[in-house]
């Protein structure tokens, strides 16, 4: 039994939980609801154990460190944080309907990083710069913040889809596009996995089997498929609008939950940035060097600050703030993943 087995176990449990939450939502069966929460909680415990075991395994290898140091470990921690914040939230608000938003997001995070062909899952020794307690505080606060923003994003996408009355509504388009983008990205990751593992063809980089393929034909088909799926969902979404809306808590509650998550995430992100600056100052003597990662984390912070001002001071509500939450999350994803793969700098620990 090693940490990999346990991680795969938690992955499966989150998938089961996702299905259970959907069934709960469709049939409003309390027993299924309790089951869904239970499966999520068990998955969470298993994932916690996996993280602990991986920590122990690093010591067995001779270069012990807390498992927060590379893309794999941080993504797994992000998944863990999403589930943690969701479970607390479910308890405090005594409401299970958002399980369909949180469980799949937690599942997606750990599933995609587990199958992505170019992400090393090895326990690596830390370079001297990473050997610091600041690493722990900085990564934990940042990712807990990201997790809160992720849940807010999920709720906001739901809001944008449910609040729409007409297909032409720009907000509806944004919401549906966000949903379809997440689904397509996951499908592309699964495709990479299948092509590499089942068909045995090595994938040189992310999405090489679809959107980033060398073959123009494959690329074209991928884009067409994505647009097609979007068109389908966009069209059908409004047809089932009332049925969907009945499954979830009211719009005002969704709006409320979305901003409350940002109120949790914003101080955490602030702490993440501050501890990052403190660490940088202690390691290199510069608390801020406008490195792309630092700058993008500030951009994310500014977007959520704009959200808070829009809501609290300018009285924005509903769809407008939901869109800001979606834009904020796009910035979170770019800060975490985009910077490592698209830009270069201090933080590029993503392989490519």
């Amino acid at each position: 039994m090693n940490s990999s087995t346990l991680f795969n176990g938690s992955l499966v449990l989150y998938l089961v939980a996702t299905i259970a939450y959907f069934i709960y939502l469709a049939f409003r069966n309390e027993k299924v609801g309790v089951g869904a929460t239970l499966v999520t909680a068990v998955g969470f415990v298993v994932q916690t154990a996996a993280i602990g075991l991986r920590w122990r395994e690093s010591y067995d290898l001779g270069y012990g460190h807390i498992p927060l140091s590379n893309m794999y470990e941080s993504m797994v921690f992000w998944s863990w944080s999403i589930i943690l914040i969701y479970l607390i939230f479910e308890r405090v608000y005594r409401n299970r309907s958002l399980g369909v938003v949180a469980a799949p997001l937690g599942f997606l995070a750990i599933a995609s990083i587990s199958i992505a062909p170019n992400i090393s899952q090895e326990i690596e020794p830390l370079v001297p710069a990473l050997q610091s307690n600041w690493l722990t505080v900085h990564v934990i606060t940042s990712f807990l913040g990201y997790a809160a923003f992720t849940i807010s994003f999920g709720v906001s996408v739901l809001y944008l889809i449910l609040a729409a009355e007409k297909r032409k509504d720009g907000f509806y388009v944004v919401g549906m596009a966000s949903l379809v983008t997440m689904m397509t990205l996951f499908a592309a990751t699964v495709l990479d996995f299948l092509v590499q593992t089942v068909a045995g063809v090595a994938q040189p980089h992310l999405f090489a089997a679809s959107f980033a393929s060398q073959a123009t034909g494959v690329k074209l088909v991928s884009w067409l498929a994505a647009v097609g799926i979007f068109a389908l969902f966009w069209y059908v979404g409004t047809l089932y609008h009332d049925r969907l809306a009945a499954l979830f808590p009211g719009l005002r509650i969704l709006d409320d939950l979305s901003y409350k998550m940002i109120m949790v995430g914003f101080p955490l992100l602030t702490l993440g940035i501050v501890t990052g600056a403190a660490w940088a100052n202690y390691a290199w003597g510069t608390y801020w060097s406008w490195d792309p990662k630092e700058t993008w984390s500030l951009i994310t912070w500014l977007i959520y600050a704009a959200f808070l001002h829009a809501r609290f001071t300018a009285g924005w509500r509903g769809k407008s703030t939901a869109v800001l939450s979606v834009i904020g999350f796009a910035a979170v994803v770019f800060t975490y993943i985009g910077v490592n793969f698209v830009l270069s700098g201090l933080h590029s620990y993503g392989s490519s």
Partner: protein
Amino acid sequence: MQGDSPPVVDETQPTPPSAGPEPAVVTKPWYDPLLSFFSSVHVAVVTLIILAAISIIGTVLQQQNIGDIEANLRLFQEFFGDAGRAQRAFDLSERIGFFHLYQTWYFYALLCLLSTSLIVCSLRRLPLTWRIMARPKVALEDSGFRASPNRRSLTLRLPRAEAAAVVVAALRKGGFGKRESESDGALYLFGQKGAYSRLGIYATHFSIIMIFVGGMLGSVYGFKAYMQVSEGETSDQIQMRGDNRMATLPFKVRCDDFQVDYYPGSQRPKDYYSRLTVIDGGKETMHERIEVNSPLQYNGIWFYQSSYGDTGRGLKARIHVVDIKTGAGHDLSFSGTEVTEVPGTGVRIQLQRIFPDFAQDEKGRPISRSNQPKNPVAAVQVLLPDGTSKLAYLFKHRPDLKTVAGLPVDLTFVDFSSIQYTGLQVVYDPGVWVIWAGCTLMVFGLWFAFFSSHRRVWVRLREEDGATAVVLAGNANKNRESFAEEFERLGDAIHAVGEARG
């Protein structure tokens, strides 16, 4: 309406009795539109968005303090496809400051705009907030009681003074401070807690200004420099980052030792550290071992372990030599290029050169790619008894690899060392404590602004036929659900005590 003069009143005519009072003309000060502009939330949000957008440019184009700006030329070439347009785009970008974006006048101007907006907004809203906190209205009108989101009416069968005591005790128990006033036959009580939470948002905004000030202090009065000290040597020379000019420290730093530890079986550095001694006024005043994440601080100047390298001097190598005929092994040490005889063989060996990171260039010539010992190779001249000599390359990581065949001795490159130098980042930043104070204030400010609530309770007690009618009202500016519960409990407590006593 500024600049209007007050209406001229013709004093010779009596004012008609039916006319109402003259409307007051308020002369607004000249800076009023400016104030309105800066205290507008929309202006603040737009400034934040512009700042965010401009910052993005600086992450896509490499900045000169941390990257290689020539890479931007390549980026433009990829984007435009045309070398001429790429060059023009590059030159234009350089001129308008895109390669040092965060130090341009317009970036600073945006930061100033944001600061002004923060200051003006805060100063405009603070008086009202202060009034709410410090001078609350105790005698709430009836309409206030009726409009309150939380309200309760009770009758306590007690005289008013006793009823008041019950209420005050309940308020005290709930942690509410108390004020009272008497007006038109009724006693009014007021309690509040968490009033200071209203300052949270001002603390957060002020902390941003503090951070800007800290940054300015550091840029203007501080410096960042680089220093290189070889093992055993002392230096006080530092090279300023940016303009690269040399400067002298008011004290000397000596590197007593530099070490790199590798993870077993790999070339990955596990740890690298220097032992430094500070010599001030001729006396050794500090000895410290520094490594990455553990700097040395002396007189406000910080020394950070930044890099290291090989000076190429003081070369020492160990080679294990085995006499093929007799099987006798010898561990030989080499210093520099001296010639050493292998005992009992008549063979002499001379160390020519060590390549820490051996590779071959495009012409097949041996070079070292870097100073890091990633692939150490020793080039040794083997002087045979018959007078000929052969040049052999010994690979530390590949002892099996023999570049010359037929030698009477088997050579293995064991290890080598040379004088290392330690690369230190030297920093003086008088603004850094202001930054940390600002950050701490920001975190506390956010906590109070988001999670701490200003809760207020108003009570009116009116004596009616020997009993007292008690009306309660309360509100909170955050966490209203939990306050509603607290208000319920307060009312219940008063009712219970009242019943027990009356």
